[in-house]
Structure formats: C-alpha cells, structure tokens
C-alpha cells in the first residue's frame, strides 16, 4: 500500500476507529494499540474494498479474541492502572459529575449483548447498515432490529442505574467482553 493511501486511510478512519475501540474497551491506550494493529494489517493489502467495514471488522475481531483471553486479568489491571494514573495526574477536564456519567454509561453499555453493543458502536461511527452487516456477519435486514434492541436496552439500563444510584445492572454478556 502506498504511503499516500495509508495517510488517506488514517485521516479518514483512525479517529473513529480509536473512538469506537475506546468506547468498547474503556481504555484509550489499549484502543490505540489495537488501532495500530488494524492499520498495520491494512498496510499489507494492496487495496481494500469496503474499507470502513473491513477496518472495523478486523478491529472487532482483534478485540474479541484478546478480550477472551485476558478479560478478567485486564479488568483487574485496569483498576490498578487507574489508581496509579490518578495518583500521578489529575485529569483536568473530567469533573466528578462527568466521571460519574461515564461510569454509568460504561455499566449500561456492559449490560447489553456483545453483538448489539458492537453494532451500536459502529453505527455511532457512521457505518451504514451494509457495513455493519458485513463487519458483524449479520444480515442487513436484521441490523435495524439489533440497533433498536441495543438502543433500548442501553437507555433503559442507564436510566435504571441513574435511579438506582449506580447499583450494578444484571444481564448482558459479562463473559464475552
């Protein structure tokens, strides 16, 4: 792949990919690592048809595989990292309220099924139904239902969490991070 091709891909898709991964993983560093890996693989192709779908599909599968291996470990280490990070540096932007919102959102997101979650996150990055279907191996016709279910479940979980003062909402694929 030529250099200007790479730059174009990067310009178009790096930020959305990182955001997608950050939302999915809850860890910006990890997200950037995975994004790097995705683009590395893209580099090895002469060309990509349906680029966005391809990039998001590879990203999703990388996450899925690694997450399976290290799910519990990573959760624990993430907590440690956060503690450590907080000890060193005070995030200037994140107020307590926004941090709370983020925590609730994370919990709500965790409470929906993995496939629904991924479909929703992809949709948020602008992937159309065909791209989402291709990336997640769904039929195009089922994407609407999947998104509907995901959005409903997310909103309801969030609401419940807000009302319940952040108590853990049961359900979702805890094992399938």
């Amino acid at each position, binding site marked *: 792949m030529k250099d200007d091709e790479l730059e174009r891909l990067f310009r178009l898709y790096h930020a959305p990919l990182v955001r997608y991964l950050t939302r999915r993983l809850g860890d910006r560093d990890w997200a950037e690592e995975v994004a790097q890996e995705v683009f590395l*693989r893209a580099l090895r192709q002469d060309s990509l048809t349906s680029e966005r779908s391809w990039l998001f599909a590879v990203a999703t599968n990388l996450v899925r595989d690694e997450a399976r291996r290290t799910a519990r470990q990573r959760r624990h280490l993430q907590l440690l990292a956060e503690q450590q990070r907080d000890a060193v540096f005070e995030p200037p932007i994140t107020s307590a309220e926004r941090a709370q919102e983020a925590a609730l959102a994370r919990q709500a997101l965790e409470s929906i099924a993995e496939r629904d979650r991924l479909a929703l996150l992809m949709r948020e990055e602008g992937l159309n139904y065909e791209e989402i279907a291709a990336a997640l191996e769904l039929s195009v016709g089922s994407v609407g239902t999947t998104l509907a279910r995901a959005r409903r479940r997310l909103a309801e979980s969030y609401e419940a969490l807000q009302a319940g003062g952040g108590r853990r909402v049961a359900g979702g694929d805890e094992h399938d991070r």
Partner: protein
Amino acid sequence: MTDRHEHLDEGTIHAWLDGALPPDESARVEAQSASCAECAALVAEARGLVAASSRILSSLDAVPAGVIPGSSGSIDQLAALRARHGSRKRHWWTDRRIVAAASVVFVAGVSTMVWRVAPESARSPIAEQMADGVQPLSDSVSPTATAPTAPAPPANDMANESSLAREAQGRGAGAAADRPASPFVASPVDAARTIDTTQEQKVAAATSLSRQAANQARLADSVGVDPTRQAEARREVSERVAPVQQSAQQQGQVGKQQGFQQMRPDTMRVTAPPPSFGTRARMAPAVGRASADAASAPACYSLQSAPLVVDSIRLFNEMIPQRSDPSWFRAENFGRSMANTPLQWRQVDSVTIELRVRSTDATGVRFTTNNTLPDVRREDGLTGVTARRIICP
C-alpha cells in the same frame, strides 16, 4: 372494508431513522407514521432512544488518554505506524514480544543507519544484540564522536563482533582500542559521520527508552501478562520517541525508503506457486494482497478424498475480515455437490493452503501446490488432501 395494518416494528423504524431503508419503503413508513397515531408514538419513542443512546455513548469519550499530554496525536500514531510497518519486515528481528512502537521505531532508525554506514557483515550481529537490548547504544554515544580519539564509553560487547568496531579499533587512538566506540561512529565515510552522530544521538535517546520498554515487556511476559504496564510503557515511549524518530526519519529518508523497498515482500499471486517467505503464519502473507492486476484471476483446484463435501474449489483474492486473522480469503465450491458453499482459504506457508467452511471452526483441509503431502500435525479438524491445479471454468 377496514384494513388493519400492523403497526410499524421497531427494527423498521430504526432503519428508517438511520436512513437505511430504500426509498419506497421509506415513503411507506413515513406515510404510515403520519396516518397512524400509535405508529407515530412508536417513531417518537424511537427518536428518543436514538438520541439518548448517542448521548450516553458520548460520555464514554471522557476517558483520559494518558498522563503525558499529546500522547495520542494522530501524527505520532501515523509515524509510529510507519516505522512499525517498516521494521516488522526485518528478518533478523524475531522477538515479537517487543512490540512497543518505540522499540520498533528504534530498530527502524538503527537499521537505517546500519544500511547507510555499515558493511553487510556487520549488520546482523549488531542488530541482533541491539534488539536483545544487550548494549545500550546511548552509552557509546559521545558528542565528539567525529574525533576517533574521543574516549570511548564502557565495554561494548556487541561491537566486538562488528568489523566496523575493529576498524574503529584500528583507526582510533588507544582510547578506542579496548573499548570500541559505537560501530556507527566508526564510519568509513567521513561525511556521513557527522550526520550519523546527530542521528545517533537521537536514536540513542530512542534506544534507551525503547530498551526500557522492551525490558518491561520482557519482564511482563516472564512474570505474566501485564498489559496495562505494557501499554503505559509503550505510550511513554511512543510519545517521547515519535518526534525523535520523525526527525531521524527525515535525515535517514533515503536509507529508509531503500529499506522499505527492500523489505516489501514480493507480491504474490494466487495463480503461481508463491516464493518462500517468513514462516510465521501469524503475519499476513504477502499473498494476501488483493492485487489489482487482472492477471491475478482466481485459482482453481480439484481436491481428492476431501472430508468436506467439496471437490472443485475456486480461490479468490478477496479478503474475508471476519476472522481475527485477516489472512482469510474467499473461496467457492463449484463441484457437483453443494455448490456455492461459502468457503475460506488462507496461505499457511509457501506451498500449503488451508481451506475451511466459512463461519465454522470445524473441519478443514490442507493441500499443497507442489504435489507433496501437506503437513498436518495433530491440529484440530485438519485433514491433508491432495490437490490438482485446474483451469477455472
């Protein structure tokens, strides 16, 4: 006659709101939501859910990226990516645990310099030892490196094997004798030396950082996966190294370009037996390139004694990214039975192809393109079959 229509279903409404319905369906939904109060209510609710979920998800973006500001700049990422891509192809660099962008960057920078100044013989041992982090390059850097008589730093094991070092020993004053300076300093090309020094200093900075990262990675690996620490280390290194590497890159641009060209694997086409390449199947083989060349038409094989109900298959160059290993490509069965079974294939090594039914991890077959028996150790569900290349119908 009353027509009792069904109210709009959720999926259709969301598809409509997302603009994913074809025009005629879209018009139908619009009309229905206008005429049916209940449908209108469902649509309104759906709009609310769409907006709410967007808002909820955007609050997840408040996650701080890292301790050091500017750590996630796209330019840095792009630079790190380029370096990583270039250096991955280095054959002598086999330690895949050192995946920290910076240590890779370091390797790229170093090898660029090696090509520019080092004779062939000196390359491998130096590079290997540096990759092992045995010798801190920074220790051997001296600002007055242009002077061969500059006092050399503490013992430099790696340089012993390099002919450059010997050259330095021979050329330099006694100070360099027992402690040869960095091989890069002892460049036979005087003009290059000055440039090398600057580059060297920059690479030195990169080196010590990347070495830290590499050591951390190694430590983490031996102790157990510590991805967070790894991530932190990599982040730190890439932040500090990327700008360094960028300027080093500019200086070493010519060498680097040559390097890239050298390292780019031969484009392989499915239609011809591929040349041998790196053995790690993990790396996407060069055959994975979806070549725009019309000559790379799909290849067809006839399989004998396959457990899969396939006999004649067609291998395409089109990638299937669904599996985590993106070196899977589309394949089709066009034989007598179960035509158009969705299949996938990949290149296992230079002569072996693996074929599976798509979306399952069940049985698969392997065959070779050179009329030998494929090597199928006790891997799950894999059977070796013989195959004959045929002309695609």
